[in-house]
């Protein structure tokens, strides 16, 4: 039976997914072994049930991220924090340094102070998710099985981890395989 694989993009820049696409011809081998059940690169709207492995890119920044992350945890056997934003919260978490009220002040800064035309903070209930008071790495919200840091993680390391997972082994990066930034 094929492994049911998902990849998800929370508060990140999509760079980790770009690096995933850098797997080039290995992607063709992967297609034989996995069924991609949910990902920014496939058109599935709802995170499915019974997922074997999910690579999670991005930090937990807003209520949407939070909600889907809990759903992912409920329906997935193995979670991999994929890239620095997922592992450390990285650049998205810089706003945490501003302390309480940081979400509102970054919105003011970006959409009002720096606006050239039509200064207005976008707000639309049910469409634009509110920012969380603090940006969090994935493992501080739900338990995570494995960590694949890097900004982005190089394709070679993604391959190492995915290959080990498909072989049923527990991937563990160390030394030259490990990289932040």
């Amino acid at each position, binding site marked *: 039976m094929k492994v049911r694989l998902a990849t998800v993009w929370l508060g990140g820049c999509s760079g980790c997914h770009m690096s995933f696409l850098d797997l080039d011809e290995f992607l063709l081998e992967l297609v034989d072994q996995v069924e991609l059940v949910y990902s920014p690169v496939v058109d599935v709207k709802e995170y499915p049930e019974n997922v074997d492995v999910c690579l999670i890119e991005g930090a937990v920044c807003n209520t949407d991220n939070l909600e889907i992350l809990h759903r992912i945890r409920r329906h997935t056997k193995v979670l991999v924090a994929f890239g620095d934003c997922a592992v*450390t*919260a990285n650049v998205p978490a810089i706003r945490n*340094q501003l302390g309480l009220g940081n979400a509102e002040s970054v919105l003011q800064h970006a959409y009002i102070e720096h606006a050239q035309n039509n200064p207005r903070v976008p707000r639309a209930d049910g469409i634009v998710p509110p920012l969380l008071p603090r940006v969090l790495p994935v493992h501080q919200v739900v338990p995570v099985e494995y960590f694949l840091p890097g*900004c982005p993680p190089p394709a070679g390391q993604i391959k190492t981890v995915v290959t080990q997972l498909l072989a049923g082994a527990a991937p563990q990066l160390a030394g030259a395989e490990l990289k932040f930034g």
Partner: protein
Amino acid sequence: MAAKTLTIDDKHLSAEEGATLLQAAKEAGITLPTLCHLEGIYDVGACRLCLVEVKGLTKLVPACTTRVAEGMEVLTNSERLRKYRRMTLELLFAERNHICAVCVANGHCELQTLAYSLGMDHVRYEYRTPRWGVDHTHRLFGMDHNRCVLCSRCVRACWHVEGAGTKNVSGRGARAHIITDLNQPWGEADSCTACGKCVQACPTGALFHKGATVGEMVRDRHRLEFLVTARQKKEWITD
């Protein structure tokens, strides 16, 4: 000088009296993780990464500031030590703001290298994300307090290699930080000779040459060692 015999990880060896456990281990080919230690400058035991177990002592001791003694039995890689090292390292990452992706030292940082060698793939503690600034007032150098691990290598280089005494540690606990002169902006610190030794000494992205961008802050660590050897032994050796 009298020699002392001891064992480190079951290796029997002799070391000169007055040598530190770190020196003895190094000579025996045993590497210990270090961060506040810098060849050529005296040790202070600030980072606690080089902790070792000594038989008969309940406390762990830093190898860089503990002298060899006759009959000492030292362990450098026990389960207990690995546990504490990993903890110490994670706390260092959680204490200030380490965002490697946008750091001048990315790829050339001793803190990063330690994380890789100890297999630290994530930090279990909550990040403190304190708000620290960047001092960009000096004409040649910058100081980013967000990346500082308070190893005091810069302070020791400034006082004991350059002899300027510009840099100091001020405050305690979480408020401890590096200052220049009487807590003035670096650019206004008259005692600074702009020698750049502190920048060479710094293991992280906290001190940098102005204009360096992400990953550009590569250092020449041997320069300080060269200066110290030249001064103390009157030997001008470069490799």
